[in-house]
């Protein structure tokens, strides 16, 4: 996306990510817009699967275990003493995206977004990445087309 506010402020508390990564674009436009009587609607099959995958993550034992782990990991004493600037730094990371957040409770959606967005910084010569059908990197199945 190319739109940016001319008045984009730096250093404020409100995060204003430039919606220029594939992940942000997907989030904004996938399945959106007016549906017309098209004779065919092509879709980014792999990407749609990833999104659906993220949406169906609901409260489950696995979710609870992740919450438990995060709760147990809390160091309440240290937390009180932690320098707030450091916290903000941790969370904002470079470029102010929340994908840098180092929490066990990163939503599934975020993990997925990271998985999709991974190839973003690389050169786009090969468009293998967006066809990758799963967020689990272990199964990077190759297809020659």
């Amino acid at each position: 996306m190319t739109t940016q506010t001319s008045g984009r402020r730096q250093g404020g508390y409100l995060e204003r990510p430039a919606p220029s990564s594939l992940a942000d674009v997907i989030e904004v436009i996938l399945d959106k817009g007016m549906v017309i009587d098209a004779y065919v609607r092509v879709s980014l099959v792999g990407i749609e699967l990833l999104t659906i995958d993220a949406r169906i993550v609901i409260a489950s034992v696995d979710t609870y275990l992740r919450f438990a782990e995060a709760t147990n990991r809390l160091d309440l004493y240290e937390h009180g003493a932690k320098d707030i600037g450091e916290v903000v730094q941790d969370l904002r990371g470079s470029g102010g995206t929340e994908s840098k957040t180092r929490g066990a409770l990163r939503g599934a959606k975020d993990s997925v977004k990271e998985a999709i967005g991974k190839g973003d910084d690389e050169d786009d010569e090969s468009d293998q990445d967006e066809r990758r059908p799963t967020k689990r990197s272990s199964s990077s199945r190759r297809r020659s087309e």
Partner: protein
Amino acid sequence: MTSGGEEAAVLVYGVVGAHPPAVPEDAVGPDGAALRQVMFHDLAAVVGGVMPGWRPGREDLMRYSSIVDGLAQHGPVVPVQFGSLLADEQEVVDRVLAPEAERLSALLEELAGKVQVQIRARYVEDAVLAEVVAADPEVRDLRERTKDLPDEVGHADRIRLGELAAHAVADRAAEDADTVLDVVRPHVAAEIVRPVGGLDILDVVALVEAEELRVLEDALEALAEAAHDRMRIRLVGPTAPYDFVGGD
């Protein structure tokens, strides 16, 4: 439905008012040729050519996004769902512009001067969990009991702890979502609140008068500053009004 892109076709990006022509000069369709406008009375559909066998990829998606958002900068646009192909320009008239003329004109009028933004609020993990531990004796107790145990022990307690914590965070999120919405609402013309889970507090897309955007930003900046030790607020946009044209 055919399996897609076996013949040359046109990809529809969106519909704008016919005056003035608004297609970005350097924008190209999937076939690499300049975009075209298909005119019908006071409507214009912006379309790009598609070669036989076309399969959309990342670049097409990014380009679609920048083209539609580019159109939005010059005036109201009704984005058409990505990947919508029609056989040729005549079909764009026959199947979209002519039958939908009234609805399209009404939408364009309604969208004039407005932009879409997405606002998301999310907890700082350690901060909200510390609140939960402090507020709930049972959570505190379960935490003490399972904290130093090896992973394979205390499974039931762990699940119970996680369940309590997850629900407590969700309850807080519901309340805090209202706080954020109270700040947002006075500045938006329409809103769609999306479901959230995990550490997310609120995910809302809103239609905002372009001139009100700065006021909304200021209000959110003040809230983000006041609440920054426990939540992060982000605002994405302005973009074209993808969520406010009767799509899914």
